[in-house]
């Protein structure tokens, strides 16, 4: 049976990098993998998603309503935006970080309260983590995406793949130490 993952967040959070690492690790493990990255205007702070499917044979990575086994939201309200893609009984991994979108900053819309509570009340399996705080404690806020990678890997039960090798391949040498620590912190969260 194929597994599907939907990663959602904000342009600049490093979602595409995490998706590349995940996809390559899965391929080396012997899975067929398809990963769809929709970008273009994404660097400009818009909402970004990537879709990954893996299994014996995958044709299309596209995930629609009720189809994702796992939804990884790199920002709280992105979990709200994409929750309809999660299948009943699926797992939601959510970063508690708040990134205000422009309509909120400009006072045109409001950033909602009680998001995590709402998610925990309504969704069966929720893993919430303040990945930015975890990363900041390690001294590098930018590594929060790698913390999320660790949580995701653990939730999928895929710890045996050489993820640290992939992190080293895709990230600059001077950041290896902190990113590997961030990854391990993510693994430990569960």
């Amino acid at each position: 049976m194929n597994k599907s993952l939907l990663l959602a967040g904000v342009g600049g959070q490093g979602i595409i990098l995490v998706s590349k690492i995940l996809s390559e690790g899965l391929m080396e493990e012997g899975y067929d993998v398809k990963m769809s990255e929709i970008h273009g205007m994404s660097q400009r702070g818009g909402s970004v998603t990537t879709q990954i499917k893996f299994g014996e044979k995958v044709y299309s990575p596209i995930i629609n309503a009720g189809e994702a086994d796992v939804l990884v939201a790199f920002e709280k309200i992105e979990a709200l935006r994409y929750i309809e893609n999660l299948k009943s009984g699926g797992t939601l991994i959510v970063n508690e970080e708040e990134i205000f979108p422009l309509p909120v900053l400009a006072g045109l819309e409001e950033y909602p309260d009680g998001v995590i509570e709402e998610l925990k009340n309504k969704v069966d399996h929720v893993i919430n983590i303040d990945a930015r705080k975890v990363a900041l404690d390690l001294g590098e806020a930018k590594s929060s995406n790698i913390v999320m990678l660790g949580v995701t890997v653990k939730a999928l039960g895929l710890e045996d793949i050489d993820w640290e090798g992939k992190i080293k391949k895709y990230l600059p040498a001077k950041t290896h130490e902190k990113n590997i620590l961030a990854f391990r912190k993510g693994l430990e969260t569960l």
Partner: protein
Amino acid sequence: MKKLMTGNEAIARGAYEAGVLVACAYPGTPSTEILENVSAYDEIYSEWSTNEKVALEVAFGASVAGARAMASMKHVGLNVAADPFFTIAYEGVNGGLVVITADEPGMHSSQNEQDNRLYAPHAKVALIEPSDSQECKDYLKRAFEISEQFDTAVLFRVTTRVCHTKGIVELGEREEVGIKEYIKNPKKYIMVPANAKEKHIEMERDRLPKLHEFSNTTDLNRIELNDSKIGVVTSGACYMNAKEALGDKVSYLKIGFSYPLPDEKFKEFAEKVEKIYVIEENEPYMENFIKALGIDCIGKEEFPLCGEITPQIIKKVVLGEKTPSTYKLDILPPNRPPALCAGCPHRGIFYEMSKYKNKINVTSDIGCYSLGASAPLSVGDTVVCMGAGFSAGIGFDRVNKMAQRGKKVFGVLGDSTFFHSGMTGLVDAVYNKSDLVMVILDNRITAMTGHQENPGTGKNIMGEEAPMIDIVSIVKACGVKEENIRVINPYIMSQNKEAIKSALEAKGPFVIVTKQPCALIKEVQKKRANLYSEVDNEKCTKCKACLRIGCPAISMVDGRVLIDKVQCNGCTVCVQTCPYKAIKVHQERGGENE
């Protein structure tokens, strides 16, 4: 060797393996990474061409001279290149010539979702559609063989889901096909009427019947027989979506060579299956053809014409499956549209323009400046296509005068767009004595598509130093009077203010060139890394003037205005906008830097 590659990376690999020697493109989502990846191969000459028409013409010249050549572009780029495309169809090739069009069903990052398959029957050019990364590589090699075998340009059509989906690709070796001999042949390559008449007849009489026969026999069009109750005719990304949705429950006719379409294969398939669904995004291109053959099929009666056709839609239509159950929440998220970045050099002048809402109209263009049209700046009356920022402004201004609206028109575009097709509008404005104000936002890069070099940047795609084409010199050479030109630093609000005021009072064409590099350029980020602005909460009266500049780094949290140090690059537009001087710029090491 196996590698995980996007369709675009695989196309680049295919170009390398096919022995391509010349590759040209103009950046445009979802096609941009094709040439970026091609440029990593030293064996291939790559160039960012000034626009798509130039790209196709350069590739055509290379083909006639004997090399395998290709031009890649987004779907709307082929409109720009349509002029050479239709006549190259008559002339044919020497070295193989492939035109890659990256279409965008669903418009993830485009202004329309035109279906460029229709260009193939219109121009009578062979059409190939790969479905995934492996096919991108393999079919591109086939495209060059077909191009040379049938003496025709080949249109290679991919869509966003093919371009931007990573899949596993088996790599091959490069085949050096070399450069063919060039023999002068005016009857073939000089399309004056006498020769064109001959070539048109030749194309209809000789080439198209051969391609038609090929379409019926090639393995690019293949039948996969499973159950005979339902048959699916499909191509491109839709084939993958159909397989994902229906697996081996149905039979398939997978079309990889889609102009000319294989009538015999359709008839054969119709005999083998009871009911046919045609699954294709956007236009009913294959469906109309199949129906014209007298074959019953279900297409756009059930499938949407607008947007993408996902596996879920296919399951609903073909299998009658319901949407799987999911979660519904009571809290709705606020919108998150893309926005001008913190520190974007376009913000200041857009903010200044936003103050003249009742005095000006703004014809905007394709690029980051289209983001200036969003709230709270809301600067922009039109966005159509590359270059229209100037030319549409000329027409708008004429009618504003006829209607005596007393409003000035500002046309806005960027440096790369200026070279692409803004220059022609500039010449038009001068020649036809327009009073248009032309604003060229020169941020030293092609920004929206992810930072490509252009004629103004002083570098080319191969990383070499290149002549830097000077925009201001062009403006002067086109005849804009010195007193009607302002070259300003858009981080300095007084300069924005003065330029716009002068423009409003000026007669004749007026040009404002803003010069400040994109805030996301690596060197710029490095240089400004320690700069940030901070609010003095004792002075701040919470008037919210700073929030009106629409900067994603500035927020109001619990009644206090806060500037995010990480995002802020100290551009100081907010500092200059604050009426109470409550914002100061700092340098992390080395104190204040006002």
